[in-house]
């Protein structure tokens, strides 16, 4: 295994009788190789917990061990040594961070035995990350979708990880300091930082969390006799506020490489097509949406969906795909909706036409006096007066033309400022919030609808509110 020599995170047992290893210029050491390595990668932070085991031969007495990590992004404060076997006979007597070698430490291990022991070294490193992405292929009739979720592990840590068990943490953890920054400073500097208790909390929290996760099943070695090499499974387990994805078996990801694996595949996921006008979210245009639900009914719902890019294709019905959209999605909890904006549809025309405007309920204020009189009222109005309040009536038609071959559903949200009365007979109309009117309508294939409505805005002294009131009323074109 020539790769051992490429390791920059090296672990050496110093074959010395004295503890004063640092003082000598001539060293002899053996390099126990990694027996196992496990990576737990958090995608919310640039943080990976590495847990590796090595088998080390100890002799009775003090055994110096050297651990170095030149040119990697390991957090020096996070390195810990634990004994898996013979734990009761071995003890770390002290840990030394030499001042002249920032990316190195020494442990002096007090041993009561002559013999082998498995040690576990854990540390945090930055530079390894993972991200999710999704590829959806909609059926030609746009009712079902094949949805695949991939996870991609990216290793820029400076270290090659061979045959590593990979675990991915879905969710956000609280990190006080960015580990990458920590890794760039020597231990002595780190020691002076006053956020130690935060770091300790962070480390122990992350470790505790990891210990509660049951070990992943052993890699299926039965593959040697089976007909076909099976795709690796990604095992998903919920844990506290997090989800842990464990990739079946082990993976080798050299430094600089990234690797993408399928996390799940769902066939025939039902979805809905909806057109939406929500200027706050999608800009001033009608967009077409694919709406999926992350639940069992939709053949999903086994796991929350980590944030990532969703790419949507459609079977174009002529033995090929059409590219529809690529969109970043947020973390989707189980039961929540996945909404993909496909942009405008040239076959659906959405127009708001202002038909006419008029004013009424006009009130005049007599100059210099707190006296108001209504136009058309019984009282005569002095010449010496000014308009102080009025209602402006604007009649619109919301015209939607559907040139697609299917009935479409259109949801419209419009916001209004000021004291507004919204008059219409649009079925199902409601207030989305105090200033936003929402309705959903359908338009048959090849048809056009005109949704008439009147927006009455009370102006000047007539304005007494700052909200929208719905009123059922026939509006003539």
């Amino acid at each position, binding site marked *: 295994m020539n790769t051992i020599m490429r390791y920059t995170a090296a672990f050496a047992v110093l074959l010395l009788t004295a503890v004063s290893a640092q003082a000598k210029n001539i060293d002899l050491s053996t390099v126990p190789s990694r027996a196992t390595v496990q990576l737990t990668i958090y995608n919310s932070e640039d943080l990976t917990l590495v847990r590796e085991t090595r088998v080390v031969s100890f002799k009775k007495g003090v055994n110096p061990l050297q651990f170095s990590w030149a040119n990697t992004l390991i957090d020096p404060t996070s390195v810990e040594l634990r004994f898996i076997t013979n734990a009761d006979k071995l003890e770390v007597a002290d840990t030394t961070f030499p001042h002249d070698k920032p990316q190195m430490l020494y442990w002096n291990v007090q041993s009561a035995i002559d013999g082998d022991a498995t040690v576990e070294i854990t540390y945090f490193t930055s530079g390894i990350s993972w991200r999710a992405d999704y*590829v959806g292929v909609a059926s030609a009739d746009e009712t079902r979708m094949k949805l695949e979720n991939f996870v991609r592990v990216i290793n820029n840590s400076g270290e090659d990880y061979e045959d590593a068990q990979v675990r991915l943490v879905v969710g956000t953890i609280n990190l006080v300091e960015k580990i990458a920054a920590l890794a760039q400073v020597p231990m002595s500097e780190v020691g002076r930082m006053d956020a130690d208790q935060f770091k300790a909390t962070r480390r122990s929290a992350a470790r505790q969390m990891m210990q509660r996760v049951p070990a992943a099943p052993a890699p299926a070695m039965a593959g040697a006799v089976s007909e*076909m090499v099976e795709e690796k499974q990604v095992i998903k387990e919920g844990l506290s506020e997090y989800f842990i994805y464990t990739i079946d078996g082990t993976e080798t990801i050299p430094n600089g490489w990234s690797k993408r694996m399928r996390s799940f595949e769902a066939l025939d996921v039902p979805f809905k097509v909806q057109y939406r006008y929500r200027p706050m979210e999608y800009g001033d245009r009608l967009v077409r949406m694919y709406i999926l639900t992350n639940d069992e009914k939709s053949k999903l719902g086994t796991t929350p969906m980590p944030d990532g890019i969703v790419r949507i294709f459609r079977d174009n019905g002529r033995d090929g*795909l059409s*590219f529809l959209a690529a969109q970043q999605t947020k973390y989707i909890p189980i039961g929540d909706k996945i909404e993909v904006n496909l942009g405008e549809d040239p076959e659906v025309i959405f127009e708001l036409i202002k038909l006419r405007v008029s*004013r009424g309920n006009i009130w*005049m204020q007599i100059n210099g006096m707190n006296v108001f009189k209504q136009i058309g009222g019984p009282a005569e109005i002095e010449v010496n007066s000014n*308009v102080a309040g009025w209602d402006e009536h604007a009649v619109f038609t919301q015209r939607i033309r559907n040139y697609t071959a299917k009935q479409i559903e259109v949801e419209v949200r419009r916001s209004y400022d000021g004291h507004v009365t919204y008059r219409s007979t649009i079925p199902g109309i409601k207030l989305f919030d105090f200033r936003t009117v929402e309705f959903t309508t359908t338009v048959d294939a090849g048809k056009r609808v005109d949704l008439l409505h009147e927006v009455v805005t009370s102006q000047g002294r007539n304005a007494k509110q700052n909200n929208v009131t719905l009123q059922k009323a026939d509006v003539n074109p």
Partner: protein
Amino acid sequence: MSRRIRLACWTMTLALALAGTATPAWARIKLITLPVRERVEIQLDNPNTTLVEEERIVPLVKGVNQVDFSWAGTAIDPETIVFRVIAPEQGKNLDAKVLSVSYPPNEQSLVWQVASSDSGGTRVRISYVLGNLSKSFNYRAVAARDEKSLSLWQYIRVQNLANEEFGSTGLWAGFGRRFLKPIGVNETKQLLMEKVEQVPVTKTYTCNPAEFDYLDRAQNKLRVPMHYVVKNAKANRLGTAAMPAGKVRIFQDDGKGTTAFLGEDWGRFTPIDDEMRLYLGVAQDIVVKRTTESNNRTRIAGNLYNQEIVLKYEIENFKDQPVTLDVAESVAYIRRELIGDTGREVQWELGPKTTLGDADKEKTTQDKVLFHVNLPARAKDGKAEKATYLLHVILHNEW
């Protein structure tokens, strides 16, 4: 053979693969096969994105295969690459699937690990979004001598700056049209998408000072632009799809077997049942003088008043044919011209003195009122009749 985009395939020894050692075999000496493209389809139906789909027959052996895909010097979006196993070669019963994808550092390439249940060739389809392969549309319109109809050619122009050569390639232009053409590096191909004959066209003469201004302000003469109006409707032998934006070169049959170039204009994106208006220039033979006949204010109370405005149009048609003139006005523009802008919407109605006829109900909105006025041809002696029309608008509740 493609220049830049390359697919290579090699196989790890079975034993190594199955021993659970997933190490890619980066041996220095390796034998690789280079499957060629069997079929390429370029999907141009997305307005912003070009999707390339190519099929190759990959020789797989039983076990784990490495399939290397590289695209040096091209603008493939690596995140969009989709690898699908379509079918094994005839007579084979082979199951293949992708185990993982590895991305080497600082290279425009990736490696698929593909497991195969047996040895044999398998047709795979690779789809990706490719940059710098763009399309545009343009039109050629030849109007009949009588300007009542025109022939319309619609072209798609595909420009390949993607640094990759595509042999015989299916180009999907959208609207279900497919062309099978090779397209070389830096090549531009123009393809006829559709030719439609006998498309009814309306030649319009329009005056609308808010939009087209005056031709001669001092003489109160309005500019009268001419347009060909083509409605993208089924009745006009169009209307199957929205017409994409593009330059339109306009010609007219000169009656001598050739065509005369009338000009060109940008045709806007035209949905079905909408009109594409093509500007032809300013009509010199139709003179429209617009003056303000009256402008009266009536107080309602205090500073609140109604304003009555009568505009007069004196129109002469010096052409030998009768024409229809579209008289359009923006009432907000009239108010701005005569009173000034109040910042409020105009509350207006047409007054009884209007002699322009009825407004076009379909096209009249709050912002625009439109009339169609029929003008007779000039008399035999060459004299044009001067017709006078009035537009009476009442502005309510102004202050």
